[in-house]
């Protein structure tokens, strides 16, 4: 195998750790419901919400935390959230219907994203706040409200293209939102439709891990809100979208060691670490490393609620250097956020059954075939590198365990069906019947990708919760906030 095993152990907080330590339950469920199986943990979502709430509290800010529904279509998660004080951000007609059906009242729903007439109509009909991307969308909404005699609609204006003063930030172009440079025309349109829309505030969602870019955008929003006020409009809120990130790995040192060795493998200094010498975006041009590492920064100590905290503490360079939170508070604005991935941190697990374990070359990685397709786990599609947890079928003898290197293949009849292109190190050799559990993926990754190709079923979803020291479960769709205490009622 060569050298030390390069583990990338997943971060498991107490709930997921307890689940992973319940082999009997996990095997019983996969025996009954099949592999792959997605397990979601609704109570964790409520805890994650509390973490965001406590950041609001420490900065004295009010405003709403809207779960970005696009991140997961689980009913159990949505219904659990409906039982808290959180909101939900919906990006399609189906998601809006789902949210209303899960118990979210319209004052707790924001409609974002590209909208078709039905979506706009139902949003306006039910008095959901609408986040508008363009002037055209605003016109369309106003026409709809007048024509169908709908109630006055609360709107947010989504902005993009913020510029830091003095320094031009080359931004990834966004398809969404109106450039701040054109906000005047947008505000004139709001005034023109003043009979049918109420301006709640402005919004942005930036797809970046960079705090400074988001701080620049927030400062830009404060400036536009000031323009709103000078026009006599009465905005109350800034919605700063999501993108607060997740820390996937337990150990920063493992991540650093792994990425260094990956670089060296690409440069040919050490044996390959991937199937077919794939470089995850890096390549070797006569001894110099070129390209960009296309990987999610899997170890991120500042993610989720901590990321929000840092953003709020960031000084607003163009507005006197006061922290952004202090400025929001000074201006009496509510802060809205739309975390998706970050709210789903530790909210799920994907279970896959080992079908076959095959030796390939001597000392080379083992070929492990799983009862799952690559898109059921979808780690590769998100650039997340993280080891699965081995859940042995029979209480394995941990003391005799020897680390092994493996390649994880899916069960689809395609050369490309690799669960992950990298050589994965496991603390023990799996055997057919064992489960490999992928932490977090059931929370965020899979719903974007899972298909029914080749007549293979997409994973089922089960919701799980703890009662005392026991885990209980039901099918995702059977879960309601009354369910966890259902047995007792």
């Amino acid at each position, binding site marked *: 195998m060569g050298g030390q095993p390069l583990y990338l152990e997943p971060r498991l907080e107490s709930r997921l750790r307890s689940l992973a330590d319940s082999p009997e339950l996990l095997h019983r469920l996969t025996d009954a419901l099949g592999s792959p199986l997605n397990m979601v943990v609704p109570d964790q979502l409520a805890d994650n919400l509390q973490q965001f709430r406590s950041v609001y509290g420490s900065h*004295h800010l*009010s405003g709403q935390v809207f779960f970005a529904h696009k991140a997961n279509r689980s009913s159990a998660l949505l219904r659990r959230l409906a039982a808290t004080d959180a909101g939900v951000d919906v990006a399609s007609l189906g998601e809006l219907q789902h949210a209303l059906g899960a118990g979210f009242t319209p004052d707790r729903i924001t409609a974002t994203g590209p909208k078709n007439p039905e979506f706009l109509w139902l949003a306006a009909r039910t008095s959901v706040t609408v986040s508008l991307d363009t002037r055209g969308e605003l016109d369309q909404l106003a026409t709809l409200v007048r024509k169908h005699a709908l109630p006055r609609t609360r709107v947010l204006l989504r902005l993009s293209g913020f510029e*830091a003063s*003095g*320094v*031009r*930030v*080359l*931004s*990834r172009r966004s398809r969404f939102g109106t450039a701040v440079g054109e906000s005047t025309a947008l505000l004139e349109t709001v005034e023109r439709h003043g009979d049918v829309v109420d301006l709640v505030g402005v919004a942005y969602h930036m*797809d*970046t*891990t*960079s*705090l*400074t*870019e988001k701080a620049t955008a927030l400062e830009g929003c*404060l400036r536009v809100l*000031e323009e709103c*006020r*000078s026009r006599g409009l009465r905005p109350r809120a800034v919605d700063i979208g999501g*993108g607060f*990130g997740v820390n996937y790995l337990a150990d*920063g040192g493992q991540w*650093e060691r792994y*990425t*260094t060795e990956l*670089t*060296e493998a690409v*440069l040919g200094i050490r044996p390959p670490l991937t199937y077919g010498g794939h470089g*995850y*975006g890096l390549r070797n041009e006569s*001894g*110099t*490393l*070129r390209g*960009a590492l*296309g*990987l*999610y*920064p899997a170890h991120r100590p500042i993610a989720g609620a901590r990321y929000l905290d840092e953003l709020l503490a960031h000084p607003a*360079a163009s*507005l*006197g250097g*006061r922290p952004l939170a*202090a*400025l929001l*508070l*000074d*201006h*009496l604005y509510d802060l809205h956020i739309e975390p998706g*991935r970050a709210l789903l941190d530790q909210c799920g697990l994907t279970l896959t059954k080992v079908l076959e374990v095959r030796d390939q070359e001597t000392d080379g990685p083992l070929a492990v075939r799983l009862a799952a397709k690559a898109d059921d786990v979808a780690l*590769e*599609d*998100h*650039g997340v590198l993280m080891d699965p947890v081995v859940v042995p079928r029979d209480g394995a003898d941990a003391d005799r365990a020897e680390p092994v290197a493996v390649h994880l293949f899916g069960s689809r009849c395609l050369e490309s069906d690799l669960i992950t292109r990298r050589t994965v190190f496991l603390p023990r050799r799996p055997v057919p019947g064992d489960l490999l559990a992928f932490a977090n993926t059931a929370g965020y990754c899979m719903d974007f990708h899972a298909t029914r190709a080749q007549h293979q079923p997409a994973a089922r979803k089960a919701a799980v919760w703890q009662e005392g020291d026991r885990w209980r479960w039901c099918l995702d769709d059977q879960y309601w906030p009354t369910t966890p205490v259902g047995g007792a009622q």
Partner: protein
Amino acid sequence: MRYDSITEAIGNTPLVRIDPAVHGLSHIDLYAKLELLNPFGSVKDRAAWNMARPRLAAAPERGGQVVELSSGNTAKALAVLAGMHGRTFKSVTNRMRIPEIKDLLLLLGAEIEELPGQSECLDPTATDDPLTQFHRTLSEPGSTYLHTDQYFNPRNTEAHFTGTGPEIVKDLDGRSPDWFIACVGTAGSSTGVARALREHDPAVRVVGLVAAKSDFIPGIRTIDEAHEVGLFDPGTYDTIESVSADEAIEGMLTLNRRCGILAGPTGGAAFFGALRQLRAADEELTERQSAVFIVCDRVESYLSYVRQRRPDLFGRPRRGNSPADLSDAEIRTAPALGVADAQAWITTGEPLVVDLRSPYAYAALHIDGSVNIVDELFEELLHGGLPFSRTRPVLLACPVGEKSARYAALLTRMGHPGVRSLTGGIIAWRDAGAPLVRD
């Protein structure tokens, strides 16, 4: 010394011996090559001038902007050199994390383009990273950019092979040092100097220093990032070691405070890395040896970097009349008024209403007739004593009534008899429907 142009002042920097009482080595003479004394402030002046000179001189009528991927010192030197030759300069970077340097570059007339952060919703198949796009623009036919390309340009290394290295040999009376220690950024200075020293004495041991992976030291790279540099060849160095940001700052403080060398963090990293390496060697030695490390640039540009990591270094002594001295009980029992009572008091008692929020927020909406003293300023004022007469009642207002309660408690303790805090702050005022104006 009389020069016709500032560019003639580039190079010929002093080699200064570090006092053995500071470094504690008994058999090794340790010298600092003071590149911070170059006219634009750093070791990069040499490379920048050597790379840009032939092309700035050629075809001045063709215009063309000088561009470089640089987060600091190279950009600084190139901005000056471009300006002297009637050109503009643009820096493209994703590493410019030092606000003072950014401001200085803008002051010098540079244009800065920052590369965006990594996408949160990563698409691993995307090929158009901004850096690739940048290179594509540069290589478009008809482009007039003058790209100095410091990470790949052999004239970067050459500046040190013909300048820095031979100067060290000359100042050591024609001998190479036994040790040479340098930080790796573009690898130009370490590679060029190492080559020159080895021509004199192949036995010189070369130590390359990189930043620890989880750390950021402005100007130098981590080992992974070094592999992205065309001039970097691991074979140049006998050993490559990493230095943490804390160690770099420790080294920097010693150079600053005990040696009178106003080095920045990379100079500190080189000093720290040198000592760590040499201490072990020193114990085995019987005859004398010498070692040289490079001090790349100056401390002044890194104050905010240091403040962020070592706030203790900037701790001022505690001053009187500070809200930090108050007990929880004092704050809890600070005199306060709810919105309705405050409104009544404003009409009957005519208190001075002080709004502690930021001027921008105050300008947007405030209580009619109030004055704005932003909280930081207010705190400063109080260090000097009561800023208004005891006979004038005062109503303090902040967003939620928390800060104003602190200051009401403090003013009360300072002997003001008629101060009140607005309970719930301006937010409660607004929510109660009380009037706010912008005038």
